[in-house]
């Protein structure tokens, strides 16, 4: 025993060994695959099964998707070209592209909806990207709705202009009255003056102006609207109007005044309790019955009103969630600064509450935009309604998948980019740690 010890050399390492590379099976693609795809026998089976599923799907789908049928003019031509092979018939998208975009809008006036869309992006840019776009553009945002209505429906320019001037009158009256009265009274005065303008003054001036200076575009009937233009028109209007109405409803629901609260709760719960389609039935059949005899206004406007009401109720609940999530100290802090109710809402409460509810607000927006497809049920020609109309055509009889895929992809692009934007906004407004 002691002999062996005597023979061994005393060895003490005086330098560190150089660090070795990790085993090749734990780094790089192999390591990644081992960790993320084949980390156990269950995972390996799952991976292989889903890989097989994906490959099977792609093998069936890709040849179908990439079929050289872009220039075909009818389904029979496609079938002749494909000669029995499976393949999509993309000619329908090329041939019906203007219709899918604009519905039955007169083709020589396509520049009007296109210009409206471009202006829409200009108008929402200062809201979406506040720090990169000069805020002077907000003025244009304010007049955009009137420009858009004039461009899309046409007619004399004086109608939208008079409507716009009503708001200007209200604004100045409010500014004037606010100096002498409480803000609530000033608001009432502003509303009354605007109503007087719209109801009494502008009907007198407008015909005179129209005959003196007949500036206008050719009128386009609402029935000619269709395709994605219709979806976007209804969707954008409902989105823009539902946010302020929703805020008011949410505040009303939180109000100390029992009567206001009861009205708001009743409205919200009623709207949220019924499907949108019943509200659209009201728009298409009943709204005229509720209004004074002889009133007969535009079907698109009626649908817009109902979709806006629908979206407002959901928006109100989302914003109520944001209000409830604010710590009570914020309300008390605002009170202790001596701010009145509206100042506190505007400066302290709403900026924070809206920030908290951004995900909910955007998902309501997405929901509203998707729900615009429901108008096809009351026989308006949104993209899905048009798909049926196109299928009724002799040359495209029996075409399904190409249209569905196209419409689905366009909706996906819109909705997905909205949700990505909301994530960007959340990150940008993130002030916590």
């Amino acid at each position: 025993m002691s002999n062996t010890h005597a023979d061994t050399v005393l060895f003490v390492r005086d330098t560190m060994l150089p660090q070795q590379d990790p085993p090749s099976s734990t780094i790089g693609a192999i390591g990644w695959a081992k960790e993320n795809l084949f980390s156990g026998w269950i995972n390996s089976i799952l991976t292989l099964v889903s890989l097989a599923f994906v490959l099977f799907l792609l093998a069936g789908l890709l040849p179908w998707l990439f079929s050289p049928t872009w220039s075909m003019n009818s389904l029979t031509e496609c079938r002749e070209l494909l000669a029995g092979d499976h393949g999509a018939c993309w000619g329908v998208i090329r041939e019906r592209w203007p219709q899918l975009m604009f519905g039955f809008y007169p083709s020589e006036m396509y520049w009007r909806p296109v210009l409206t869309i471009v202006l829409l992006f200009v108008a929402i840019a200062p809201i979406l990207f506040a720090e990169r776009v000069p805020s002077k553009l907000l003025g244009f945002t304010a007049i955009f709705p009137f420009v858009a209505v004039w461009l899309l429906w046409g007619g004399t320019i004086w109608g939208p202009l008079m409507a716009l001037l009503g708001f200007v009158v209200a604004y100045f009256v409010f500014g004037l009255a606010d100096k002498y009265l409480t803000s609530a009274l000033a608001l009432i005065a502003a509303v009354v003056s605007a109503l007087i303008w719209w109801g009494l003054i502008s009907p007198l001036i407008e015909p005179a102006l129209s005959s003196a200076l007949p500036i206008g575009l050719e009128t386009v009937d609402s029935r000619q609207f269709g395709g994605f233009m219709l979806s976007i028109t209804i969707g954008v209007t409902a989105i823009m109007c539902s946010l302020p109405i929703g805020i008011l409803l949410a505040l009303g629901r939180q109000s100390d005044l029992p009567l206001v609260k009861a009205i708001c709760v009743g409205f919200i719960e009623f709207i949220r309790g019924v499907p949108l389609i019943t509200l659209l039935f009201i728009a298409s059949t009943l709204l005229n019955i509720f209004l004074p005899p002889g009133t007969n206004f535009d079907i698109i406007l009626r649908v817009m009103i109902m979709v806006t009401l629908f979206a407002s109720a959901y928006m109100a609940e989302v914003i109520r969630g944001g209000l409830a999530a604010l710590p009570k100290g914020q309300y008390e802090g605002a009170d202790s600064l001596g701010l009145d109710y509206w100042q506190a809402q505007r400066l302290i409460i709403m900026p924070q509450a809206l920030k908290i509810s951004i995900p909910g607000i955007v998902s309501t927006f997405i929901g509203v935009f998707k729900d615009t497809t429901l108008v096809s049920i009351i026989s308006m020609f949104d993209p899905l309604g048009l798909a049926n109309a196109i299928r009724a055509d002799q040359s495209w009889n029996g075409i399904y998948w190409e249209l569905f895929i196209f419409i689905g992809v366009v909706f996906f692009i819109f909705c997905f980019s909205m949700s990505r934007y909301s994530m960007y906004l959340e990150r940008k407004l993130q002030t916590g740690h």
Partner: protein
Amino acid sequence: MTTSIDPPAASFKLSMLIYDTRYRSITFQTIALIAFLIFIGWLFNNTAQNLADLGKEPSFGFMTEQAGYDINQRLIDYNSQSTHLRAAFVGLLNTLLIAVLGCITATIVGVLVGVLRLSGNWLIARLMTVYVEMFRNVPVLMWIVLCMAILIESLPSPRDFRGETPEASMMLFDSVAITNRGVYIPEPLFSRGLGDVSVGGVFGISLDLIAVLIVLGAGLYGAAKIRKRADVIQNATGVRPRTWHTRLAVVFVPLIILLVALGFHLGYPALKGFNFQGGTHMRNSLIALWLALSLYTAAFIAEIVRAGILAISGGQTEAAAALGIRPGRIMSLVVLPQALRVIIPPLISQYLNLTKNSSLAIAVGYMDITGTLMGITLNQTGRELETVLMGMLVYLAISLSISSVMNWYNSRVKLVER
């Protein structure tokens, strides 16, 4: 020396209605009430006048008139001689059927997808993400119409099942036929059945079904009792008696005895003539709607489940593990009860959405309450106001009862704070 002086009791001035906070709220509410009443009165006035002009006095008498149309998918007896009221009731049952079926499937798929999205397996997680984003960002109406088109266009017609070498064949030992006219599944039949009992002379309920449900309920109740006793024994002695076999027996033995006594057997669909006969026929419209609504809602439920699981901090799991609790029990005793508190409220509002979305059935011709009452009945009688109003009230009743269940649950599981 300071003395506190009460403000002089000022005499009431008219301006105090606005400037004095004691009166201001009353003033504003009175104004709001008057405006609201004027608005409502205006609506009523307009409606009455318009209806009088059209010569349609509001009345619900048409509901007892003969409907004169057929409903192909129905749960209770109905024919074209039945009344509009009965047609509406058939529609309501169809709405509830699709809602219940859809909620069950959507929950199963949604929970599965939500859990798999958190899986460590990269490929599976990505696939589930693709599924969720694909379904959430495309309108549900398009999914419904697409499912209908897939069923009609890509499934074999009953004709293909014929001949010596048929192009299509039945599945699951010749018991299920999937065709482009719908799916035929075996139906439960009772050779020594008890017959039907009539409820108020309006519709009949199968006594067999009631008997089976009672026995099943009693069995489940007994099983729950046995389990409670096991809990008590475990608390007292620390040893948990093995009860799963007795519990299974309590549930299934009486049920099987009852089924044998009633002469339970399955009626298989069979090809006769141009179509399948026998079995239960689930129409394409039902299946398309069921499939589309379930898959669409499941995408939302998956996100809710994922958020619920992520909301439970890892410290909870680690603390439970430090106490020596086994992983399965950590899930059932620590994580799940807390996650459910986060998951259940939005889950129920998804159920609500599914029920409301089922009104899109009209797009594929499934006869739910929108299709019967607000569809054909409206068109036949021209009673827009009454039918749409009734339809809305029905949906409102369904929604409010679901949300009251939610409120009851919320108040039960709410964390008790100071």
